[in-house]
């Protein structure tokens, strides 16, 4: 197989004296969807944030598309990446947050064109054209000039997805994208994510949506207490879990 898009080997991460990740091993192949499941506090979100350089890895190796996260290796030595280098790497990874985090002082269009114009240096005209196409793709062509406060949660999250896509990322990270939504708005966001998966986007999704994981996930990873308890196809992990902890968790949520 080709180089994994995400490769984690014994990744450790502590906040102060609390060890949140206790040796994560994981590989996500290009073009696949990996769903991370697990109880809250299991380290799913922290791991996701490590992939996008929002947290630093303490031990082990984590690489995206064959390049180490946060460090540069020359011979046996590791060098910390500079701020600007980290920013450059983040530009290639899209991230969608639980609480949307749209920029409230900008319109939907403004949110989407901001990074392509300021970071990539694309002309405002081209960026706006692309943004309109993206808004159309997530079903919000009529909300171009709306401010985030004027949109529902589901609409905001779809704008946030469009914003991430505007940077043409090679990998998309979703951190519980539907957890802050009213139940009847969950579907519209999952639909957008489904269509992304169909188009071959590599995705790592932290979620509590079992149906989505079963339908869309190529691999499902169950985490608990900072380790991967079980990983495999949705049919194996969700349909025929081998570990007691996985069974207990699935019994509670389904």
């Amino acid at each position, binding site marked *: 197989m080709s180089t994994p898009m995400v490769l984690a080997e014994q990744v450790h991460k502590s906040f102060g004296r609390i060890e949140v990740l206790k040796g994560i091993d994981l590989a996500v192949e290009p073009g696949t969807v990996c769903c991370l499941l697990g109880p809250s506090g299991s380290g799913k979100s922290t791991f996701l944030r490590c992939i*996008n350089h*929002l947290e630093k890895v303490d031990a082990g190796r984590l690489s995206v598309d064959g390049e180490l996260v946060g460090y540069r290796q020359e011979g046996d030595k590791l060098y910390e990446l500079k*701020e*600007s280098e980290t*920013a*450059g*790497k*983040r*530009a*290639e*990874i*899209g*991230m969608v*947050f639980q*609480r949307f*985090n*749209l*920029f*409230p*002082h*900008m319109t939907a269009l403004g949110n989407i064109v*901001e*990074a392509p114009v*300021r*970071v990539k240096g694309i002309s405002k005209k081209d960026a706006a054209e692309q943004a309109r196409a993206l808004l159309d793709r997530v079903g919000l062509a009529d909300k171009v000039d709306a*401010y*985030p*406060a*004027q949109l529902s949660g589901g609409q905001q999250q779809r704008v*946030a997805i469009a*914003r*991430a896509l505007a*940077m043409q990322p090679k990998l998309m990270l979703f951190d519980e994208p539907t957890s802050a939504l009213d139940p009847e708005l969950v579907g519209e966001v999952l639909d957008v994510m489904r269509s992304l998966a169909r188009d071959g986007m590599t995705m790592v999704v932290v979620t509590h949506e079992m149906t989505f994981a079963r339908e869309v996930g190529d691999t499902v990873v169950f985490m608990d207490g900072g380790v991967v308890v079980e990983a495999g196809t949705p049919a194996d992990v969700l349909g025929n879990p081998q570990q007691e902890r996985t069974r207990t968790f699935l019994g509670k949520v389904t």
Partner: protein
Amino acid sequence: MTVTADTGPAPEALVAVPVRHPWRWVSAVVVLVLLGLLVRAFSTSSIQWGTTRHYLTFGTIVSGAGKTLLISVVAQALGVALGVLFAVGRQSRNPVTSGVSWLYIWFFRGTPVLLQLLLWYNLALVFPTIAGQDTNALMTPFIAALLGLGINEGAYMAEIVRAGLGSVDEGQTEAAQALGMPRGLVLRRIVLPQAMRVIVPPTGNEFVNMLKTSSLAYAIQYGEVLRAATNISSANLQVVELLFTAAVWYLILTSAFSVVQYYVERRFSRGASRSLPDTPLQRIRANLVFGRPSGRSA
């Protein structure tokens, strides 16, 4: 509103006797009487109001008011610029930058502004020349006032800006960083514009303060409105009359600014609520069209 069809005729509007507020009337009468006594006391005193009114439009007084406005605007501008600089500096991960910022705020917030004005004005006593130039020639009253007021203001503005930056949700920074925006860009495009909503109101307050604090430049020969007034009264000995002249000018300046402030704050509340509140003018116009808004204001 979603209403299911066929709910029958709408119920009649309620008719109720509104709550009465007799004490409001009593207090209003008391205040009016006190005001009347005060006005009478001043109008029958020996103050010559004609003098006060005469000097309101007198050349040196008007130019003094202009100088008050000028020094206030430029010193406040300097203060805002320094405030942003040092607020960001304090948050810097570079220990030199954050240390220098702390020291700046510590010194200029910890000593009286009048003392700082006198220090700048008397700089020649310490450094007779600066870069080959005579310090006394460089340090005109205007420059000394600008440095004294502006640098002092910067220390206060730094604290205001710091509070504003801290008020912006951390998720905003994370979202911007996740898009690949470097720190400077995140600050300039995402965090600062949102912090403005918190920064602007106290900054307006600071400017009103500056309009009045600039009168301290009186002590270093800067010809602002209070100095212009006392120059005249030292000749004609009508001290209180001219103090009132200056007071009127300060009230004109601060009142005019209150209007500006209202519109500036409105501008920066964009995106914070679903729709902007009406301006007073829009409200008046709306009332003219639709008549008085129904219901008593409590």
